[in-house]
């Protein structure tokens, strides 16, 4: 391609950061653009003109396109920025645990994104997936090596210390708070050494893959299909059908992509799996690749999960050294390479086609479907895209057989499922329960609500609210569908008595406004209009009458759901609509405005 270069040179650091990424690959291909941009960001804290120029030259990417991509991700800065950035979670689960005290305290000293001292600044962040240790933050200090650290259990004082760059003690409550004997997906988490392949094997690791190799790919496909495993990422698509569809495509090569871009607010189950049992995810991907005859696989880990990415990379390298990946997996005629690719701050990249675009080195904008990824996915080839938990469940199915899996759960929703409990609940964490348990029983398992229960957000920002009188809802795909709710990605955020739900839904609207990719009109414009409308609701200043505003909101909900390209826009108003049916959102229905929390939520 005859491209006009940017007239600027990289610094030695920038050049080295770029070249180091390219050295890991046989060819400098377009799909390395995001890894390269991430590497520049990690080294110097922003992508300079010279660094962008060098990246474009080496990868033969048009500079305008590269700029479009760099400006798409919120963990990539495209203007000079302080070396240390404290990303403070400002999302629904952390807010329920008082994160506003922290952002207020920080804002009283330093404006967000303005350089504080010691070459540091802070920013508000959407959910960081650390909800069991809310309020949380992620500190990234650019350099060689970059320091990326998730911080939980923060208060105003420790957040200020973190901003100053001090080492702060991170309370690490166990992510798993239930009796271990009932655990299957989580059985090894917290038990096995996540950095030891031997320990993994000593705990039953690679038994499933050995069985798969013995019994063959078609047996695996049948078993996953018989187990009636439904996808755990949010959409609940039958995994067996997806696997079968990829395996039956004539085109090659085929790819497996593990969707580890867990970004639904309130979701952290995949992080717990990847951090606690990374070899299981590697084995599960190997198994899936065997079943669909793929020789290359990617794990797309969200940018905010440094530990998960590091553990997976370590596991992949260990497995490769020991012949569990590479030219002949376990001495069998299976060839597979797995690569970890990291996101850079974009919720939309959890949508499977946006994820594929991102992996290919493009803006994370969803594709029109059909064609579906099983036919034309990564690089236009048949691609199996599965969520982390789905793959982990498939591993259990192959190890123990489909009957053992369907023995738990309900006929339509088989197996166990991970739920992420956060907010005003006694023991936040990941809980593994058979599908069919009631929401009430699940919350009880987590020790119950801490301050009474005014409502639950089920399924995440793209989910629905459930009122205190609906807790007998059975947690299955079929029961939630009948109730007009969704399990989504397994989010259960509990809200205390006295919660200002107007503020909560306004926060969700702000999230979608921030995360819309901007590709289609309903979502790009609609999410801003919903956010603006809720600001008027909170301020008590309608545009016209409140009836006009109700009409507007109803029509915005309709156009988002009906006319958006992807699930982000289609679900952007669902939680809000469910909230208006359950809580006093409209001012006319409110006897008095809810007072702003004055005691910081402490009971």
């Amino acid at each position, binding site marked *: 391609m005859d491209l006009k270069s940017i007239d600027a040179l990289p610094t030695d650091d920038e050049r080295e950061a770029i070249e180091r990424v390219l050295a890991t690959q046989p060819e400098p291909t377009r799909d390395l653009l995001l890894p390269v941009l991430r590497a520049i960001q990690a080294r110097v804290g922003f992508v300079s003109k010279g660094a962008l120029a060098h990246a474009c030259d080496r990868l033969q990417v048009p*500079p305008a396109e590269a700029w479009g991509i760099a400006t798409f991700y919120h963990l990539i800065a495209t203007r000079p920025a302080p070396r240390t950035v404290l990303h403070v979670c400002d999302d629904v689960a952390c807010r329920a645990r008082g994160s506003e005290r922290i952002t207020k305290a920080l804002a009283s000293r330093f404006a967000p994104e303005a350089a504080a001292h010691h070459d540091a600044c802070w920013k508000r962040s959407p959910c960081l997936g650390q909800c069991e240790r809310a309020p949380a933050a992620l500190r990234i200090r650019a350099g060689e090596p970059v320091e990326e650290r998730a911080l939980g259990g923060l208060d105003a004082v420790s957040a200020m210390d973190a901003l100053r760059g001090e080492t702060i003690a991170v309370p690490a409550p166990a992510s798993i708070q239930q009796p271990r004997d009932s655990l299957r997906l989580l059985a090894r988490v917290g038990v096995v050494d996540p950095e030891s392949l031997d320990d993994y094997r000593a705990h039953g690791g690679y038994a499933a893959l050995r069985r798969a190799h013995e019994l063959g790919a078609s047996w695996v496909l049948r078993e996953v299909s018989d187990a009636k495993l439904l996808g755990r990422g949010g959409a609940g698509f039958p995994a067996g059908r997806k696997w079968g569809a990829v395996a039956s495509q004539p085109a090659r090569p085929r790819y497996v992509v593990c969707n580890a871009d867990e970004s639904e607010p309130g979701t952290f189950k995949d992080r717990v799996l990847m951090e606690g049992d990374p070899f299981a995810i590697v084995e599960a991907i190997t198994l899936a690749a065997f079943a669909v005859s793929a020789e290359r696989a990617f794990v797309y880990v969200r940018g905010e999960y440094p530990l998960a990415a590091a553990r997976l990379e370590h596991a992949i390298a260990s497995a490769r050294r020991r012949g569990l990946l590479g030219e002949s997996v376990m001495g069998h005629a299976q060839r597979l390479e797995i690569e970890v690719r990291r996101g850079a701050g974009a919720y939309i990249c959890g949508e499977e086609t946006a994820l594929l675009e991102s992996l290919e080195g493009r803006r994370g904008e969803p594709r029109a479907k059909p064609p579906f990824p099983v036919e034309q996915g990564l690089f236009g080839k048949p691609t199996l895209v599965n969520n982390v938990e789905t793959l982990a469940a498939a591993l259990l199915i192959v190890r123990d057989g489909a009957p053992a899996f369907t023995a738990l759960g309900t006929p339509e929703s088989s197996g166990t499922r991970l739920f992420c409990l956060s907010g005003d609940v006694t023991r936040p964490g990941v809980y593994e329960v058979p599908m069919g348990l009631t929401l009430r029983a699940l919350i009880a398992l987590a020790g119950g609500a801490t301050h009474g229960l005014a409502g639950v957000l089920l399924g995440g920002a793209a989910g629905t609210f459930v009122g205190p009188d609906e807790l007998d809802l059975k947690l299955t795909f079929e029961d939630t569908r009948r109730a007009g709710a969704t399990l989504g990605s397994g989010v259960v955020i509990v809200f205390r008595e006295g919660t200002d739900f107007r503020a909560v839904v306004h926060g969700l609207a702000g999230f979608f406004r921030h*995360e819309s990719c901007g590709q289609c009109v309903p979502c790009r414009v*609609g999410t*801003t209009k919903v956010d603006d409308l809720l600001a008027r609701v909170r301020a008590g200043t309608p545009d016209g009458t409140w009836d006009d505003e109700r009409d507007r909101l109803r029509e*915005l909900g*309709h156009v988002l759901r009906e006319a958006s*390209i992807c699930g982000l826009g289609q679900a952007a108003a669902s939680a809000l609509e469910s909230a208006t049916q359950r809580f006093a959102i409209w001012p006319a229905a409110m006897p008095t405005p809810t007072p702003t929390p004055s005691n910081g939520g402490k009971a």
Partner: protein
Amino acid sequence: MAAGSPTDPTGRLVTLRRKVQLTIDGATLSVSEGSTILDAAKSLGIDTPTLCFAQNLTPANACRVCVVELEGARTLVPSCARRVEPGMVVHTDSARVRDARRTVLELLASSVDMSATPKFAEWCERYGARPTRFGTPTPRPVVDDNALFVRDYAKCMLCYKCVEACGDDAQHTFAIAVAGRGAHATIATELDTPLPDSACVFCGNCVGVCPTGALQFRAEHELREADAWDESRQSQIDTICPYCGVGCSLTLHVQDERIVKVTSPVGSEVTHGHLCVKGRFGFEYLGKR
């Protein structure tokens, strides 16, 4: 050539396409495989509003004003991008469709200056859209940094057409892209470099495909500013570009004996509606004798 292969009257090989039967608004019809729902609707004389669609570009699938109801589909589908399948039952004027199109038009009008978009007012009337219901767009200064065209981004609805025409749908220059995200997305060069310093070759193909008048040729822009642009006084003269041997079809738009715009027919086999800087702009000398 294999014996018996179908050919057209000039002897060229013709690909025979199978027919697909579907139902649109109660009428059953057969169209060639590979057609879109939009093509099929058009063959029935149904006028579907489109903005981001152009015959000579890959469907961007972004504006969503052409959505239709497809029985069995969970959501509405974009008629410009969705290919026909046997047995499809499509409704182009149901309440679901009308409601969605109306709100899409209202959202556009609230955020973009659609005043120079052909047929926009007519569509608003057809769907009962009230343009100011969701607010009014923010004015932005016109970008005037080159001799050949001006950019008024207050009129930009991010249809992606200019990016596609600059990129692999026509020009392969890749001077512009969508930058930023969501409500902050814009059409931009790298680091917002002024267009004359960017990779832009001033072919004007972006201007040629712009549906909202955000990109305007200078002559047209100046006449419009002076309220002197009058298409009823314009004649269109088809000719062949005199510059090189490719032989691009040109349409000269002439008002008061002055060439005010040069386009190329979208259906032209040579140009598909796209030109280069010479064909598009190289006519100024005619008035400067």
